[in-house]
């Protein structure tokens, strides 16, 4: 049998090695998260991303976190879904709610996963350290600065694009109402609903007094 994943194991391993160095680097300066992670020591998490097709095992130990593409044994928590679903869970303020109402399929222990999500949310990854360890200080620093700038630009472009799209839909094309217009509309509907309730109550009262006569 020839065993071959869609991605060359060298690339997969490089990505995991880089991520592992970045996470452990961040944990080095965050004793609180390290302590919380140590409590999950021995637990095996398996993340199966279907689109794109990727598989990742996450193994917390007392000192550090290990990331593997292959693990011989069964996982305590397995999470299956698409990359966007994983991203939603990672950003969720209420992970339990995100798991229940989201598209991800969970098998095994959910409490450990919720604990892991809260640790991951607090971590501030420094990409420069793994890049420097892989390519040397000079190239690593340049690449790290490039990634930071790229991510910053991406965020600004995303905010700007969202704002422009919102303005176009509300003001230019008038396809959508603006938030104040919507609030005014909801208020009017609410007032109308209350008036209708009052009218119904008055009619009931008048009808009742007529029957008594």
């Amino acid at each position, binding site marked *: 049998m020839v065993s*071959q994943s869609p991605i060359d*194991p*060298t690339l997969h*391993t*490089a990505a995991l*090695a880089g991520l592992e160095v970045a996470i452990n680097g961040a944990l080095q300066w965050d004793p609180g998260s390290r302590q919380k992670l140590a409590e999950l020591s021995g637990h095996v998490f398996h993340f199966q991303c279907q689109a794109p097709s990727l598989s990742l095992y996450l193994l917390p130990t007392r000192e550090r976190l290990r990331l593997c593409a*292959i*693990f*011989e044994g069964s996982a305590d928590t397995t999470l299956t879904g698409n990359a966007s679903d994983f991203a939603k869970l990672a950003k969720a303020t209420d992970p339990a709610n995100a798991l229940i109402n989201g598209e991800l399929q969970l098998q095994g222990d959910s409490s450990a996963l919720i604990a892991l999500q809260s640790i991951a949310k607090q971590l501030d990854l420094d990409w420069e350290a793994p890049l420097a360890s892989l390519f040397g200080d000079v190239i690593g620093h340049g690449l790290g600065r490039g990634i930071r700038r790229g991510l910053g630009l991406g965020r600004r472009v995303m905010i700007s694009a969202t704002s422009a799209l919102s303005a176009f839909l509300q003001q230019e094309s008038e396809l959508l109402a603006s938030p104040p217009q919507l609030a005014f509309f909801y208020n009017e509907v609410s007032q109308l609903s209350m008036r209708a309730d009052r009218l119904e109550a008055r009619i009931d009262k008048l009808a009742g007094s007529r029957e008594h006569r």
Partner: protein
Amino acid sequence: MSEPSEPNSTHFGYKTVHSDSKEELVAGVFHSVAAKYDLMNDLMSAGVHRLWKRFTLELSGVREGQVVLDLAGGTGDLAAKFSRLVGAEGTVVLADINDSMLKVGRDKLTDLGLVQNIQYTQANAEHLPFPDHCFDCITIAFGLRNVTDKDAALRSMQRVLKPGGRLLVLEFSKPSSKLLGRIYDAYSFSLLPAMGKLIANDSDSYQYLAESIRKHPDQDTLKDMMIEAGFARCEYYNMTGGIVAVHRGIKP
């Protein structure tokens, strides 16, 4: 792979030599490169050999308390990682036929503070000096192609593995694409010896390295050899387009 036509003869790179002399010739190569082995590995592979070894480590499935043999372990890259994985209750045996490589490996691991669970043995892979059924895992990384009688070495490894134990052979192999094969040929027959000359002042050893890779069995042949030696569930993973492959087999 073409076998030498003369009886009792084998390959030493592209040369055909008497089987008895290959061991000595290979020893000469590794005595020469031992001191700069790690540096050359990093330069030749642009650091990618670390990723190949890391993936091999994942495939090993080694756990705390297990006994691991890192055969042809050279300067101890894999042994260092296994030492951390098996912990204080486990044991790692770093074995190499070449005493210069073994000395470099021992010094390096001692400098890293890894002394508690590592043992060192100068051993020939064809005649392993260990009792039957004593290792949970054996790895041989970039070593099998230098062994004179590869079949004997695989049988010897099978003998010393515990039932259920696994063998991992990490070795240069045959690129899966013709274009990559041509680029790789150009690199290994022109740039590699030049780098060897520049860094280690020894172009001949690196010329041998390139030649020995071409003479090594390809992926399917090596898999068949492992099956022949008595391993079950044999499989291989191509890495970096087949330039390197890791074979895995289980002792039934």
